[in-house]
């Protein structure tokens, strides 16, 4: 690209041709106040009018996020005219915004509040009618409150880009425009997979997770045995809520915090992940050896399971019958653990800390109950856990590093840790399948050919004991669809496919801390592109450091089978650890 000469605030710079004013200014060290602190191309470009500047050659003020630079252009950000115009734009947005900021869980992470602060919007200059609020609290995963929506359209773009399902859109016109699934339906009555990618990109509190902190509080008040289990991806991101650099694993401090929050036992979901590998690996070998339905597809991701039930009802026999790791572990806590401890399962309350909001839906499924008792009682996100830690007055960075409870369960292998990143379940399964087929461990433990950290499809052929196993990995439903259509058309050459609902896997789940460059002044400028890889590396590092790295070598898993489950895929294992699926109508009768 050719370089051209521009001036910003009277100072000369050389920048690449083709950039917008906003991008060029950023290169030169200016952060024009804007709501454009997100991935390029995921908003209604230019519609909010916050980033107005003066530029020679243009008539009036221009929106710097869409206006291209040209040779000789002189840009002024600080002129009284531009400053006032930006403040007016923000005040116009605020004039139709529900300003109950202190009741909003987004407080502190709200981009609108931030830009109001830096543009100096201190008074409510424009008062008048408010557009009608559309509020949806029916779905277990997420809530929508359009009184806080600024109609930026990021959520619409993300749903379409990542999942290809375009659940959200704008309805009506002008002042009556509002954001909604088609027909102002609830997410619960639409083919929404409740992955929460829209929540991750919302600049305000219009889309949020359905908080279950109150449920946890009630369980403590009722004197239940409250057990907590945390998923692998949580430790790779929780630190971000306490200003650690992205990619800092905070496993020890998280455990210490959970203990101080009063949980009776603090378990790692990785034990459940190891259990999943034992069941799923055995199921896969069974299908390969007995001409079962292939390819088999993983079923750990409830967002993906929702997608399959809505869109590929005919392919449901391809899904592994295994429950997801936290559901398996919940079922074991309420059976094996309860038996060993002499506690009535009805008095146990299992809380899962998840990077995911679809898990909030998953735990409500009738198929995820044993004798009417749910495996898991509450699911809180990484973000909700951070809120609980802060409200309890725990200073996170001064906590000691503590260890998981590992009394009769809770020990885990490195294979369990990498479940949190796309390709991880596949690699964990291959480590165990290799052992089952050859009777020995692979010298080089890892299967790096299946690793990655982004959306898209990866594939590999693995030779194990003369058997060629073809595998593929996809995350985000837009990618998964390609593999699924091939299966439908009879063209799929794979034995085993891993599918994760969110692009990049659980590390980028809908319940993870918000990543916004504007709130991360100490991160590199390209953090929006690199954060997934950084979180993934935190998990691969923990895997490397584990003394045991294959699920089948986890001594407590071996003991669980010896004492209780007998063997993988046994009758008892099926009763507790496996589930069923059913095709669902997207827009159901309401």
């Amino acid at each position, binding site marked *: 690209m050719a370089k051209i000469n521009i001036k910003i605030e009277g100072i000369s710079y050389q920048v690449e041709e083709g950039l917008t004013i906003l991008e060029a200014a950023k290169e030169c060290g200016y952060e024009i106040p804007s709501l454009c602190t997100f991935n390029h191309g995921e908003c209604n470009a230019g519609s909010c009018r916050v980033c107005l500047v003066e530029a020679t050659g243009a008539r009036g003020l221009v929106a710097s996020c869409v206006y291209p630079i040209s040779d000789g252009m002189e840009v002024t950000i600080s002129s009284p005219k531009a400053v006032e115009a930006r403040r007016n734009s923000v005040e116009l947005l605020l004039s139709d915004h529900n300003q109950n900021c202190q009741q909003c869980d987004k407080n502190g992470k709200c981009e609108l509040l931030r830009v109001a602060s830096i543009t100096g919007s201190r008074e409510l200059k424009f008062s008048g009618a408010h557009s009608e609020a559309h509020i949806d609290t029916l779905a277990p995963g997420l809530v929508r409150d359009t009184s806080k929506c600024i109609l930026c359209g990021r959520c619409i773009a993300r749903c379409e880009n990542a999942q290809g399902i375009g659940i959200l859109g704008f309805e009506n*016109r002008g002042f009556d425009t509002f954001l909604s699934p*088609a*027909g102002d339906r609830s997410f619960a009555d639409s083919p929404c997979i409740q992955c929460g990618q829209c929540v991750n990109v919302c600049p305000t509190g219009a889309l949020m997770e359905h908080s279950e902190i109150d449920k946890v509080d009630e369980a403590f008040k009722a004197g239940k045995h409250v057990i907590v289990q945390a998923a692998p991806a949580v430790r790779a991101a929780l630190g971000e809520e306490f200003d650690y650099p992205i990619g800092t694993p905070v496993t020890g401090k998280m455990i210490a915090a959970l203990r101080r929050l009063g949980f009776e036992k603090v378990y790692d979901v990785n034990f459940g992940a190891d259990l999943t590998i034992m069941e799923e690996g055995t199921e896969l070998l069974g299908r390969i050896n007995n001409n079962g339905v292939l390819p088999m597809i993983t079923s750990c991701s409830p967002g993906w399971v929702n997608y399959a039930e809505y869109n590929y009802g005919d392919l449901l026999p391809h899904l592994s019958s295994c429950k997801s790791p936290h559901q398996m572990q919940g079922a074991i806590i309420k059976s094996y653990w309860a038996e060993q401890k002499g506690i009535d399962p009805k008095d146990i309350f299992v809380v899962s800390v998840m990077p995911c909001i679809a898990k909030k839906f998953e735990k409500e499924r009738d198929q995820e109950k044993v004798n009417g008792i749910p495996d898991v009682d509450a699911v809180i996100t990484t973000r909700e856990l951070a809120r609980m830690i802060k409200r309890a007055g725990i200073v996170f960075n001064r906590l000691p590093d503590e260890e998981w409870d590992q009394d009769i369960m809770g020990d885990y292998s490195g294979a369990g840790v990498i479940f949190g990143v796309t390709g991880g379940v596949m690699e964990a399964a291959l480590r165990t399948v290799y052992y089952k087929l050859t009777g020995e461990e692979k010298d080089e433990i890892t299967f790096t050919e299946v690793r990655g950290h982004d959306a898209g499809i990866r594939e590999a052929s693995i030779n194990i004991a003369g058997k060629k196993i073809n595998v593929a990995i996809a995350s985000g439903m837009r990618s998964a669809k390609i593999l699924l259509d091939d299966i439908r058309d009879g063209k799929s050459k794979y034995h085993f496919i891993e599918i994760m609902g969110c692009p990049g896997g659980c590390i980028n789940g809908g319940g993870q801390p918000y990543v916004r460059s504007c709130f991360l002044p100490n991160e590199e400028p390209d953090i929006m592109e690199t954060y997934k890889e950084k979180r993934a590396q935190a998990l691969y590092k923990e895997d490397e450091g584990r003394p045991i790295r294959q699920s089948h070598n986890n001594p407590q898993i071996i003991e669980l089978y010896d004492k209780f489950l007998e063997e993988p895929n046994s009758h008892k294992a099926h009763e507790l650890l496996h589930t069923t699926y059913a095709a669902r109508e997207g827009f159901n009768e309401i």
Partner: protein
Amino acid sequence: MGKLNAAAVAKIDEICARYKDEKTPLMMILSDIQNEYGYIPLEVQEIVSKHTGISVAEIYGVVTFYSFFSLTPKGKYVIGCCLGTACYVKGAQQVIDRFSELLHIKPGETTDDGMFTLDALRCIGACGIAPAVSINGKVYPKMTVSQVNEVIASYLINEEKEVTA
């Protein structure tokens, strides 16, 4: 979701197929469906979504953006009252209010017997004869509040003739 009969599904498939080579076929498809059936409910939008690859939410957005499209069946007679600037200053609001009062429906609604739909229109380009009302394409110029009763009655009398004939 309410199920469409096979003939209706085939018709919608056929309408979508008409524009399969168009780059941006949505408006044409929706216009044809609106003309054919008089409305475009959600289950029809689902079929259009499958053919075009455009999300149902986006199609719903288009249907609710343009007042020409309707989500519910329209009445036999569609009364369009222009509320454009010229008609408005000439008293169009009082005219539409009178229709509302006599028919017991709000703008956008249809009478229970399916006879009349009342629509508020933006400028229909008939400013010279403001306030203008259009019923199934027939334009009534310079409407007054006192004429509303008469106009409704003329359609009801017509109906009786049709029934007795």
